[in-house]
C-alpha cells in the first residue's frame, strides 16, 4: 500500500490487472464536503508542515505512517481524491497540489499494470510538478506561495519522488522499446498488426514529448542546479524556494547517477555524485522552526536507506564496467556490510522498501563475487571488503566461481543476475511500422530487438572478463613467486615461452587502473593504482 517501485511486487499470480486509465484520466468532482474528516485533516496538516511549520518529525509521521494508514482504510484499491477535491484544505496552493498529485499518483500506479495512456498521464504529473517546483526558484521574479516559508519536504520524500520518476521513465522506455520491436518483427514477417498494438503505437507517436530523454535529464540537472551548494544558490533557494530544494538537488544527483548507469554512461553516472561528496558544500539544516540538526550532503543522503543503497549499487556497477575494480569493491563492500548489519539488527524492518532490500543485497553479493574472482586480493583485504561479507560471497557463489575456474561460462550468469535493467532511450520511427510494410522493414535495416541496450552492456562486460580470466592464473603465480624463469611461468600458464612477454604486458596493463584518492564514491579525480598490489 506504500509508493510502489516495482509493480510486479504488488501483483499476485491470479489478481486481476485492470488498467488504471479510467481512474487516472478521470477527475472525481467529489467536493470537499464529501471527504472524510481524517483525509481533510491529513491534507491540512501535511500542507502545514510543507509550507509553514517545516517540522520534520511531524511531516515524517504524516508521510510515513498516516498516509499509509489512510490508504489502507479508504483507498485500498481506489485512487485518492483529486487535487481539485482537496484544494480548499491547502489554500489552493498550486505547488502543494502538484506535490500531492504526485504522491497519490504513485499509489495509483501500484494498483495495476499501467496502460500507455496511464504512463503518459504519469509524465504529465511529473512535468507539472517539476515545472511548479522550478518556477519558484528559477528566473528573476521571486515568487512565494501562500504560507511564506517556502517548501519543506523530507529527504526521504524527495528521494521517493525522484526514484519513482526514474523508475517510471525506465518502465516507459522498456514498454516503448518492446512494443515497437514486437510490431517491427511482425511487420517484417508480413503479419498484420493487431488493433491494440496499432493503437498503442499511435498514442506513442502522438505523444513523442512524453518521457523524452532530453526532458527527463533536463529536469534532473535543473533540480541539481537549484539545490546546488554555492552560497548564492543556497541564499536564493532558502529565501525563495525553501529547504526542500537542497534535498531535491541531492536526491536528483542520486537519481541522475542511476539514470546514467541505466543508459550505459558510467562516467556520467559517477560524475553525477559530485554534489553529494563536495567537501566544501555548506551543511544542511534538518528542518523545523530553529533549523534542526545540521548535516553534510553525504549524511543527508546516507540517512535515507534506499537512497544509500541505490547510490552505492549504481556507483559499484559503474566502477566495475569502467575497470575500476578496487573502487567497485570498496563501494559494494561498504554497502554490503551496511546491509548485512541492517538485516541482522532489524533496522530495515521498519522501512517501507524492505521487501526490495533482499534482492538488492543479492545483487551486491553477486557483483562482489565477480570482483573477488577477477582480483582475489580485493576480497582478502579487510580494508576493502569486510571479512563477514567476503565470507558470505564465497559461500553463496562458490558453485559458480568453481565453474569459472574450470573454464565454463560463469561471469555472464552472475552479471545478468546482478546488473541493472539497461534501457534504450531513443524514440523509434513509428511510421516505419504503422505505415510501412515488410519491404520497408527490410530496407530500413537495424530492426531493434528490444534487448539491444542490455545486450551491448553484457557483451562488453563478457569481452572484458574473457581477458581477465586468462590473467587469473598468471596473477596467482606472480603472487606465489618472488622470481621465476619465464619458460617455467609460461608452462604453468599453458602458453609458449615466446608468448609470455605479451601475456605479461597484458597483465601489467590490466592491473593498472584509476582509483579514487578520497574515501567517497563518485570521485572522478583519481590516481592510477595497481589493485593487484598487496
Amino acid at each position, binding site marked *: 500500500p506504500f509508493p510502489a517501485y516495482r509493480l510486479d511486487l504488488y501483483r499476485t499470480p491470479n489478481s486481476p490487472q485492470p488498467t488504471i486509465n479510467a481512474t487516472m484520466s478521470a477527475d472525481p468532482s467529489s467536493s470537499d464536503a464529501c471527504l472524510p474528516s481524517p483525509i481533510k485533516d491529513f491534507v491540512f496538516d501535511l500542507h502545514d508542515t510543507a509550507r509553514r511549520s517545516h517540522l520534520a518529525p511531524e511531516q515524517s509521521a504524516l508521510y510515513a505512517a498516516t498516509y499509509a494508514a489512510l490508504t489502507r482504510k479508504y483507498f485500498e484499491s481506489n485512487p485518492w481524491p483529486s487535487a481539485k477535491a482537496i484544494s480548499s484544505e491547502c489554500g489552493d496552493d498550486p505547488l502543494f497540489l502538484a506535490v500531492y498529485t504526485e504522491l497519490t499518483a504513485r499509489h495509483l500506479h501500484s494498483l495495476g499494470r499501467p496502460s500507455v495512456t496511464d504512463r503518459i498521464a504519469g509524465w504529465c504529473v511529473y512535468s507539472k510538478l517539476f515545472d511548479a517546483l522550478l518556477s519558484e526558484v528559477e528566473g528573476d521574479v521571486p515568487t512565494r506561495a501562500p504560507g511564506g516559508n517556502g517548501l519543506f519536504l523530507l529527504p526521504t520524500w524527495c528521494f521517493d519522488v525522484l526514484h519513482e520518476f526514474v523508475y517510471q521513465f525506465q518502465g516507459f522506455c522498456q514498454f516503448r522499446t518492446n512494443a515497437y520491436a514486437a510490431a517491427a518483427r511482425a511487420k517484417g514477417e508480413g503479419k498484420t498488426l493487431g488493433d491494440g498494438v496499432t493503437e498503442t503505437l499511435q498514442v506513442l507517436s502522438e505523444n513523442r514529448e512524453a518521457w523524452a*530523454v*532530453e526532458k527527463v*535529464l*533536463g529536469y534532473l*540537472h535543473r533540480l541539481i542546479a537549484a539545490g546546488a551548494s554555492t552560497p548564492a544558490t543556497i541564499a536564493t533557494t532558502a529565501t525563495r524556494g525553501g529547504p526542500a530544494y537542497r534535498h531535491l538537488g541531492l536526491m536528483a544527483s542520486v537519481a541522475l547517477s542511476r539514470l546514467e548507469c541505466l*543508459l*550505459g*554512461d*558510467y*562516467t*556520467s553516472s559517477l560524475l553525477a555524485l559530485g554534489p553529494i561528496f563536495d567537501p566544501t558544500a555548506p551543511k544542511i539544516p534538518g528542518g523545523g522552526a530553529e533549523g534542526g540538526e545540521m548535516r553534510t550532503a553525504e549524511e543527508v543522503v546516507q540517512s535515507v536507506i534506499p537512497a544509500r543503497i541505490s547510490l552505492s549499487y549504481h556507483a559499484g556497477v559503474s566502477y566495475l*564496467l*569502467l*575497470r575500476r575494480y578496487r573502487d567497485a569493491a570498496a563501494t559494494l563492500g561498504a554497502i554490503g556490510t551496511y546491509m548485512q548489519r541492517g538485516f541482522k539488527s532489524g533496522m530495515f524492518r521498519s522501512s517501507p522498501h524492505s521487501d526490495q532490500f533482499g534482492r538488492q543485497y543479492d545483487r551486491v553479493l553477486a557483483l562482489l563475487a565477480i570482483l573477488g574472482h577477477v582480483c582475489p586480493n580485493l576480497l582478502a583485504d*579487510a580494508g576493502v571488503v569486510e*571479512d563477514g561479507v567476503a*565470507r558470505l560471497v564465497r559461500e553463496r557463489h562458490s558453485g559458480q566461481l568453481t565453474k569459472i575456474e574450470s573454464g565454463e561460462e560463469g561471469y555472464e550468469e552472475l552479471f545478468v543476475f546482478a546488473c541493472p535493467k539497461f534501457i*534504450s*532511450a*531513443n524514440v523509434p*520511427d513509428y511510421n516505419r511500422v504503422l505505415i510501412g510494410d515488410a519491404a520497408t522493414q527490410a530496407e530500413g535495416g*537495424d530492426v531493434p530487438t528490444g534487448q*539491444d541496450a542490455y*545486450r*551491448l*552492456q553484457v*557483451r*562488453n562486460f563478457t*569481452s*572484458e572478463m574473457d*581477458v581477465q580470466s586468462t590473467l587469473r592464473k598468471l596473477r596467482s603465480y606472480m603472487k606465489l613467486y*618472488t*622470481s621465476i624463469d619465464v619458460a617455467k611461468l609460461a608452462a604453468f600458464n599453458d602458453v609458449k615461452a615466446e608468448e609470455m*612477454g*605479451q*601475456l*605479461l*604486458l*597484458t597483465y*601489467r*596493463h*590490466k592491473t*593498472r*587502473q*584509476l582509483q579514487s584518492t578520497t574515501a567517497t564514491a563518485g570521485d572522478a579525480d583519481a590516481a592510477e593504482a*595497481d589493485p593487484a598490489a598487496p
Partner: protein
Amino acid sequence: VADPTTVTQLESYVRAEVNALYGPTAGGAEPSHPYNFEANRALTKLYQFFPHLADESCTALVLLLALLEYPSTDFLALSYLVPERVQEREPCATLKRCSDLLEQSQFGTFWVTFRELVINDSASEELKMATASPAAVAKIRMNVLGLLGMTYKVAPIGAVLSALDVKDAAALRDYVNGDAAAKKIVENVDVDGGKVVFTSREENTKKSRVFKEAVGLDAISAALAKGVHTSGQ
C-alpha cells in the same frame, strides 16, 4: 543537457580536434582544439538518443580519438554507448579490433590492423588522414613504450621493435635519442647485445620484502579464521 541542436557544434569540434591533434599542422605544444572526452562522449550520447542525427563517420573519429588515448579507458567507456550494429560495421569494426589488440598487447598485429584504416573503403578522408599522420603513430608508440617501460627492466630488442613498429635497432636508437619523453623511459638501446634497458622504476624493479621477526596475533588471526572456515567446508 541532451540538446539535439548541439549535435552540429559537437561534430565540428570533433573534426577540429582531429585536425588540430593529427592533421597536417599538428605537433605544436598547445593544440587549438585539445582532446575533450566530455564533449566527444556527449556527442556519442546524443547519437544514442537521436539515431536519425547519427553520423557514423563522426562516431569513427570519436572512437579513433579515444583509441589514441590508450591506455586510458576512454574507448571502453564509449563502447558502452555506441550501438552494437555500428560497432559491427566498418570502419568502427576495425577501430574496435584495434582497441582489442591494444588491450591484449598484441602490438604487432595492432600496427598491421591500424594501418589498414588508411585504405579502408568505409573510412572518411579525415579518418584516413588521422591514422596516417605521424602524430597519431607517435602517440601510440609513446604509450606502448610506456607500458613496456613498466613491464620490463631489460627486454629483447626484437620484441621492442615489433611492439613499437620500428624498422631496426638504429631507428629505435634515433627515436629514443630524438624524443625527450622516450629518453626518460629508455635507459639504453644495446644494439650489440640485442636488448633494450629501461629506466628503473617501481613497477619494473624487483620489490624487496621486509621480513618481521615477530608478528602480532591480530595480524594472523584473520588468516587463521579463513583457514578454519575453509577446512570446515
